[in-house]
């Protein structure tokens, strides 16, 4: 608890030497992680996957490979942002060592969790990432950041307890049929009875409900906007663009285990949660006057789109994957840019930032680009992904879901534009001199934009093959 204790004291001020090495060390760690996984990806043909290691507790397959590449690339951008903020943020500088340690511990748990081949170990790593992130959330600047961090921890524990209840039901189902269930994900399907009984269905439904709550799906979504708004910007980016993905991996693992089963009730559950999330997000985005909260509600709507896409499966699976990968970059871009805006203006209110592009031309433009990508405009990957998901829904013949999704996305588009566009291009409330922006702060965000355009215009063949492989594993065509 020395790290949290240090945070509680406000952290001992780091020496100048520490300030000089901690930021670059964080970036170096992120660079090494990206290079390592890119090398592993290049040198390991997809046909040779999965590869098990660590006593089969860990696996390197298409799913883990894809998400390792995504989360570590996003983390590289976040680490550069954090490093660049050390000299300008006194709070970050004061808590530099504990925050860096917690961030690294968070990333270690993320990397191991994504590769976990044991359901309980994966469950444990999701909880571990939450426990690393909670003290980081408590560093925020709302009226009661520790209360928000506690709510975040509490919601997470309840979500994961529900998931665990689901695991209990699966175990009971296996016992009732005289089967022994192994929690090794590659062997778990053998302990699943066919056809599934009511215990098994309840178990699966509870697991997806619990994991859906971790994804910010309605009805247990309220932790997400509250936490993303209250947390320091780099932590919001870590939660939205990195931690989100471990819950996605967990959902994928569950779907992979139950692939051969009749899971129509799961599709209905995902569809209801997805539609509910989109509706809630559309209403809240209309009311939001705070750009960080607006991004947070957009994250709820993204989770809704993912859930609807997963409920359709088959034709929409590739689109869902493209959407998830694109969203990681979009959220990182938006939160990191929002952090820059907040650092200059000292406010999260949309009205206070009117005409931001005149004061921060580069960050203002990047924020606009991020919003367009979020809303699913071409040429970004999210546009292509939404089209594929909508096409999958039409192919599945679910026209009610199609209509609802189109309606809600249109409402979100109009409501977001009404709030954000005057903030970017509107008349300033008082004259401000343009602020100089360094290339170091811009570089990671430009990288995210480049990745988003690449995903929308031209996905390199190896990445496309990886996406197809993962889509097939979750029942895609």
């Amino acid at each position: 608890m020395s790290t949290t204790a240090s945070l509680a004291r406000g952290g001992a001020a780091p020496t100048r030497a520490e300030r000089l090495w901690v930021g670059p060390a964080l970036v170096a760690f992120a660079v090494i992680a990206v290079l390592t996984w890119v090398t592993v990806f290049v040198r390991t043909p997809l046909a040779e996957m999965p590869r098990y290691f660590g006593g089969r507790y860990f696996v390197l397959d298409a799913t883990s490979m894809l998400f390792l590449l995504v989360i570590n690339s996003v983390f590289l951008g976040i680490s550069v942002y954090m490093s660049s903020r050390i000299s300008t943020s006194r709070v970050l500088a004061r808590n530099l060592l504990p925050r860096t340690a917690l961030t690294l511990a968070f990333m270690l748990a993320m990397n191991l969790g994504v590769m976990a081949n044991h359901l309980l170990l994966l469950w444990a790593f999701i909880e571990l990432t939450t426990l690393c992130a909670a003290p980081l959330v408590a560093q925020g600047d709302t009226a009661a950041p520790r209360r928000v961090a506690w709510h975040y921890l509490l919601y997470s524990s309840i979500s994961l307890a529900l998931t665990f209840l689901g695991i209990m039901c699966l175990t009971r189902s296996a016992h009732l049929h005289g089967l022994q269930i192994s929690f090794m994900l590659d062997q778990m399907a053998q302990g699943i009875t066919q056809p599934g009984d009511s215990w098994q269905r309840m178990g699966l439904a509870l697991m997806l409900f619990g994991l859906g709550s971790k994804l910010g799906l309605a009805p247990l979504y309220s932790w997400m906007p509250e936490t993303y708004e209250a947390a320091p910007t780099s932590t919001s980016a870590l939660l939205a663009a990195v931690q989100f993905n471990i819950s996605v991996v967990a959902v994928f693992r569950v779907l992979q285990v139950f692939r051969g089963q009749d899971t129509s009730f799961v599709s209905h559950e995902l569809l209801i949660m997805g539609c509910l999330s989109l509706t809630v997000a559309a209403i809240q985005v209309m009311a939001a006057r705070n750009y960080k909260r607006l991004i947070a509600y957009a994250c709820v709507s993204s989770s809704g789109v993912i859930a609807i896409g997963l409920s359709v499966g088959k034709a929409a699976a590739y689109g869902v994957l493209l959407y998830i990968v694109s969203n990681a970059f979009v959220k990182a871009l938006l939160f990191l840019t929002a952090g820059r805006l907040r650092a200059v203006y000292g406010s999260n209110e949309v009205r206070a930032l009117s005409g931001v592009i005149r004061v921060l031309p580069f960050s203002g433009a990047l924020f606009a680009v991020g919003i367009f990508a979020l809303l699913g405009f071409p040429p970004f990957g999210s546009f292509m992904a939404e089209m594929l998901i909508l096409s999958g829904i039409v192919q599945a013949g679910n026209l009610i879901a199609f209509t609802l999704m189109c309606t809600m996305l249109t409402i979100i588009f109009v409501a977001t534009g009404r709030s954000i566009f005057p903030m970017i291009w509107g008349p300033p409330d008082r004259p401000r001199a343009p602020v100089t922006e360094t290339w170091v702060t811009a570089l990671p965000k430009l990288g995210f934009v480049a990745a988003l355009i690449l995903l929308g215009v031209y996905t390199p063949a190896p990445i496309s093959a990886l996406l197809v492989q993962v889509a097939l594993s979750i029942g895609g065509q």
Partner: protein
Amino acid sequence: MTPPLIAFLVATIIPVFFGKIRSAPFWLMLQAAAMAWNTAQHGDLSAHTAVAVIEVLVVRALIAPRLLRRAIARRGEPNLDLMPSNLFTWAIAIALVVLAFEFAAPAMSDRQALTLGAVGATVAVSLLLLSTNDGAPAQLVAVLFMENAIALFESLLPEPWPLPVHAALSAIYLLTVGVGGWLIATPDPATGPAEEASS
């Protein structure tokens, strides 16, 4: 019903009906002792069983209750009921416990059914505690009760969890009480200049 399971249920149900916040660490300690007893009774004589018992005693019976007691003391709130005492919540709690044992109905061996009943009752009572008490210390106690139920669930399995899984769950339990205790014990600082925490 085996004596360890009776002890575990007593340590779960009594505090919900009659316990105060400051007595919660004691009940958690009792739950952990019952879990260690249960593991020792049903496990074979192996290093794995010994390690599991020691881990439960050290982590769940000694360190965690001490951290919780410190957090509650630092918060310095009045020593209120863990769950608000009224007939309505009592009736729901009793119904949930009965339902949990119904959940663990026939078609399983007696001990398995009872263990599942105890696990289900603990989870249900914890959720009730969460929904009836919005005080952070009571919420933390409910989360810890739930995590103990998860650990007790292990004794249902034909094979015990491998040591890495054990270690991971213990680490999470300890971190939950550590981080949760820190969050609920320390007051929120005064908000500084807006620029400060946008890092």
